[in-house]
């Protein structure tokens, strides 16, 4: 389990500042929800923490490593080996079956196909998807596809899982099922989770919530 930290991060898109001194620290194994209004910079912050974007100034740390100074290739390897991702619309590869989608991070990491599929298959039972292993994404409901995406995000036992509006495209009951599974699986594996959401009901699954406003992180103080 590793901690994730952003220190005084600034990032602009052209003339438009997205982050203006954002700092956040996520403890190993912690589940933190980043909330905030549209355009506040919460997804940009997630992308910086996950090594997708490089800040103009400030530092990003994952465990003992500073990741904002790594090359594009090094960050790519880090994302593949250490991070899992779940996005709003699943973003499954339509040409692959569900089990191949789940196995994808392992296949990309060099695991042999049989072994990768062997690790992918137990996730179907675990997430209530048994029998859907050979379906393609077009043959899955939104909730099923998102559970496949969740399995894909966790199959390689990543140190951190980054989830951007993971229930945004689902109805509330299906979204809650996905969140139940996400939290249970992450806790079981000890995965640190950073979750971006604008929904308070989703954020309530986290151990802690922060608000991003005007490119800065506001840690909510409990009185």
């Amino acid at each position, binding site marked *: 389990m590793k901690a994730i930290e952003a220190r005084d991060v600034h990032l602009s898109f052209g003339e438009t500042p997205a982050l203006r001194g954002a700092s956040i620290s996520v403890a190993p194994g912690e589940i933190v929800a980043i909330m905030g209004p549209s355009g506040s910079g919460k997804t940009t912050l997630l992308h910086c923490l996950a090594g997708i974007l490089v800040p103009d100034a400030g530092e990003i740390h994952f465990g003992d490593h500073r990741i904002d100074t790594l090359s594009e290739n090094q960050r790519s390897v880090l994302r593949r080996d250490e991070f899992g991702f779940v996005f709003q619309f699943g973003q499954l590869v339509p040409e692959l079956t569900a089990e191949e989608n789940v196995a994808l991070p392992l296949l990309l990491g060099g695991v042999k196909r049989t072994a990768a599929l062997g690790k992918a298959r137990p996730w179907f039972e675990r997430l209530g998807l048994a029998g859907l292993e050979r379906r393609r994404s077009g043959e899955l409901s939104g909730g099923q596809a998102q559970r496949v995406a969740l399995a894909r995000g966790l199959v390689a036992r990543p140190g951190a899982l980054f989830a951007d509006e993971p229930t945004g495209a689902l109805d509330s009951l299906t979204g809650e099922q996905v969140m*139940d599974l996400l939290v249970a699986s992450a806790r079981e594996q000890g995965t640190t989770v950073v979750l971006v959401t604008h*929904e*308070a*009901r989703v954020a*309530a*699954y986290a151990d802690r*919530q922060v608000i991003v406003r005007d490119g800065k992180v506001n840690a909510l103080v409990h*009185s």
Partner: protein
Amino acid sequence: MTLLGLLDREPSHGYDLKRHYDTFFSRGKPLPFGQVYSTLGRLARDGKIVVGEVEPGEGPERKRYVITERGATEVESWLTEPVEAEPNLQTVLFTKVVLALMLGRPAEEYLDRQRAAHLRRMTELTELRRNGELVDVLLADHGLFHLEADLHWIDTTVARLDALRKVVRK
């Protein structure tokens, strides 16, 4: 009304009524026996229930209470009448925000504290619904949806604070 409603389901002893009430409605605060029997006494006085067969033995718990037609009618109309949509909390929050702005106090900070308190309660309720029985899930859902509505209001109000400040500080 809850005890009367439980009697509309089936005639019951005071002890069973308390047990059913505590199981489904008490939210962790068991109903005192004294309150059960004083309520039953009032309902009997008002003709909404009657004491049915008295079983052999001592003590009030031996009495079986039966709902009357009048009682059943009251339960029916209570069930069909919507609860007044009274936003109690909103009134308090609204007053706090407007007063804070009038007094030049940090309304946004107050609202953030309220947001934190709401989210903490929502986290507790989410934990309850993840581990609880279906009845707990339904109760938690009710709380969660209401707290979520308050949070929407808080978000919208925060976004409008500057405009609101100009209005109230005229």
